């Protein structure tokens, strides 16, 4: 049961690749089918429009805790049996939590699909939690936090970076939760959250694999379709106030042997009126820091030999404002200040001179070609649709991805770069060993 601290959404792909079919159940549950008949296997995903950013006050990470508890008993399935039944049927199952969604999935032979749909529908409404089930699982998620965060200085820095970037918005919370708040989780907290958010009209079913919409519809109606819709509250998200001053953090930890650098800028997500900017930023991140011939890699790693690695990341599938980030690790004996200076120079050059026709054409060609590979993975397709639909995008948006990428112009990228590379909306984070000469 993995906390999806960062969910790789892969490349959404063109309609001629996935050919999704969609329909709606009477109770308001949206269904997306992505036929792929290579093997008699399906990936079955249920996505809830609720995630870490919807944690109750003082209970950060509760959505992830509930994700774990969904594998406990219902009235029909004894505790510990859910995954065992899937396994006995030759399937694999797990779940993932992120800021804007919680998702449950099984990979299984297609003739077992209705079994897992029945089980997933059952636990949507019939979860039965006791202290005997809840309290040991609280210890498990606390150990999970130790593994993923407390044992990893770079993960601890990531938490500090998020609270620095978001002063107010709940994207400041760790997906897994703050330790002291995790220790306070009760059975009642979990039950209240479950009863508030888990309903068919707040869920999306995505099935990829050896099935069609016509075949799936009756199964969906017999399982999820039997569950009445319920009132689900609106997702009330506070708005992050304008950032007016650049922020800098520096963390020192005795375990750090190799320093690292992160620059993070607030950036619009796909779910904005002006979606154009998000697509431009996606192309920009690829062109600027997306591979061994990107501008940053060529300049900072190859030509100047300052960093051993560098990359830029932008994740547009986010319900509220997201970030555009640059990560770098210095070569031995190179200071983070020198790395930062080199990155700033590349940003300044980009802002002054813009991108070229040639590099834009090359990066577009590569991104569109990569989309073909996305069809090879059942789960990748399911993830692309689930992540999009829980963050305000539509099936058509996912379908139009190649067209939108193709339409990005030099002017779009240059405008997006001017918008995002504003040092007043940035956080610069440095991870350093405990004993080292101070950096400026």
């Amino acid at each position, binding site marked *: 049961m993995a906390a999806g601290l960062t969910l790789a959404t892969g490349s959404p792909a063109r309609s001629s690749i996935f050919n999704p079919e969609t329909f709606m159940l009477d109770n308001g549950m949206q269904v997306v089918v992505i036929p792929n008949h290579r093997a008699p296997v399906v990936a079955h995903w249920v996505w809830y429009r609720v995630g870490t950013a919807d944690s109750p006050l003082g209970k950060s990470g509760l959505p992830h805790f509930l994700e774990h508890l969904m594998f406990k008993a219902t009235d029909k399935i004894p505790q510990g049996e859910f995954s065992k039944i899937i396994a006995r049927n*030759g399937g694999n199952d797990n779940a993932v939590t992120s800021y804007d969604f919680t998702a449950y999935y099984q990979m299984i032979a297609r003739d077992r699909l209705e079994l897992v749909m029945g089980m997933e529908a059952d636990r949507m409404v019939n979860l039965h939690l006791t202290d005997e089930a809840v309290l040991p699982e609280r210890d498990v998620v606390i150990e999970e936090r130790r593994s993923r965060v407390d044992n990893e200085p770079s993960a601890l820095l990531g938490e500090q970076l998020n609270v620095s970037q978001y002063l107010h918005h709940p994207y400041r919370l760790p997906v897994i939760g703050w330790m002291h708040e995790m220790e306070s989780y009760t059975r009642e907290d979990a039950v209240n959250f479950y009863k508030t958010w888990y309903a068919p009209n707040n869920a999306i079913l995505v099935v990829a694999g050896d099935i069609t919409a016509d075949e799936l519809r009756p199964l969906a109606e017999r399982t999820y379709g039997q569950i009445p819709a319920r009132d689900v509250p609106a997702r009330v998200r506070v708005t992050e106030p304008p950032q007016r001053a650049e922020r800098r953090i520096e963390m020192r930890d005795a*375990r750090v042997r190799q320093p690292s650098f992160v620059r993070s800028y607030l950036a619009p997500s796909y779910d904005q009126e002006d979606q154009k900017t998000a697509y431009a930023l996606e192309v920009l991140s690829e062109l600027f820091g997306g591979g061994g011939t990107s501008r940053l890699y060529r300049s900072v790693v190859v030509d100047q030999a300052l960093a051993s690695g560098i990359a830029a990341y932008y994740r547009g599938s986010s319900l509220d404002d997201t970030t555009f980030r640059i990560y770098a690790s210095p070569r*031995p004996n190179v200071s983070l200040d020198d790395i930062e200076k080199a990155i700033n120079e590349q940003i300044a050059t980009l802002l002054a001179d813009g991108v070229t026709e040639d590099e834009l054409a*090359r990066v577009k060609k590569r991104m569109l070609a990569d989309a*073909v590979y996305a069809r090879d993975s059942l789960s990748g397709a399911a993830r692309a649709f689930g992540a999009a639909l829980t963050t305000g995008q539509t099936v058509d948006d996912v379908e139009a991805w190649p067209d939108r990428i193709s339409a990005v112009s030099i002017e779009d990228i240059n405008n997006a770069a001017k918008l995002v590379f504003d040092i007043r909306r940035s956080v610069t984070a440095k991870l350093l060993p405990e004993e080292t000469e101070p950096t400026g």
Partner: protein
Amino acid sequence: MREHAPTRFSWISAWGACALTIATAVSGIQTANAANVEEVVSPGGIHAYLVNEPSIPFLSMAFQFSGGSSGDPDGKEGLSYMASGLIDEGSGPYDSQAFRAELEDNAIQLSFDADRDSFSGSLKTLTENRDHAFELLRLAITEPRFDEEPVERIRQQIISDLTRRESDPEYLGARRWFDIAFAGHPYSKPTRGTIETIKAIGKDDLRELVRTRLARNNLTIGVAGDITADELGPALDEVFGSLPADAADVDLPKTTPQGDGETVVIDLDIPQSVVIFGHGGIARNDPDYYAAYVANYILGGGGFSSWLTEEVREKRGLAYSVYSYLYDTDLSPMWMGGVATRNDQVMESIRIIKEQVARMADGNVDEKNLDDARTYLTGSFPLRLTSNDQIARMLVGMQIYDLGVDYLDRRNGYIEAVTLNDVRRAAKRLFNEDMLVTIVGSPSGDGDGTVPRLEGIDAPSSGPHEDNIGD
């Protein structure tokens, strides 16, 4: 062997039936149709396994040269690994940036890796760029340039990575485990080298490795995707035909892991200790392999269903993850596992793990455990073969272990044929609670004495990180 009723799941409109009846109603899972594997022999005599799958216009190729980091020269440990990072950094007419641009602009994915026993690679390309992709692969393995800039860049990347790993508990635990288990044997060599040995590697070493290790007689190839046997045959000659016929012999002795019963602590100030445990295993070609595979699945290989998960995680909430796996290598089969838990719970967790290992070794496995394992292992097998990448890798493994071109059709039969007596016999052979245990962290409180520590152990600076290898 138990008869499996050919019950197709018939519970479709009966949601509400007791879940416990489900498990017994569906024990006869139909195996999904296995992919059609062809053996292709090129005009020049190069063999490959192929699964032709034209539905998506691309292919995945996996290939492997036997002989890996265990054969790296003394003082040049990490040579194979460093070569794997450099072989796609400039070849023939292309310098590093030009070669990377050829790959990236054409969406060709090419990567190389090295482990103890092999030097391996993978290629993924759209059909429309196939010829160019094959040409770039040919250049990479036959005309790598090892220009100064990429050599120094990759050297610094490896050194940065090794430096970072000096405080990585998983890495430290695995390195120490292999240092003790294979003291004096090439398997104790760190796959990624050490900072000192990486600094000592020169261009001539890299050229020598490519010249002597990449040959046709130690090469295994698997291909899945949009290419026919008739198209693949000549392509194999174009890509691999100019390699030397024979690789230089590297004669390394077989061995078995040492250190059974030892527990060693590497002190590191972290809130959660990381534990690596293991001992000798059962080889892939051993008649008891499938029985041992089933036994390990029940003990620690079955995710949420295993005894270790049940006892350590589900009942007591001691850990997020606890697991074990069979790890076969050319020179020493192994069984290994791991757990990570709060420092004051480490010794209790290890005690519980040992109890479960002893329970399995003592033959306390029952018919239901076996049934559940069989239905999972047979039913889930097709799930592992849903992408071209997965299939290509599987095709390489089938040839390495000499499993035959029809293995995918026969594999579930081997699992079905495992009896309770087989599992008990294999478990008794395989499992021993006197395993070698390495702990990285600040463990406390074993209840009946001090936690043993080796004198003067510093964190080793480098070494391989073990990956799970399935069947």
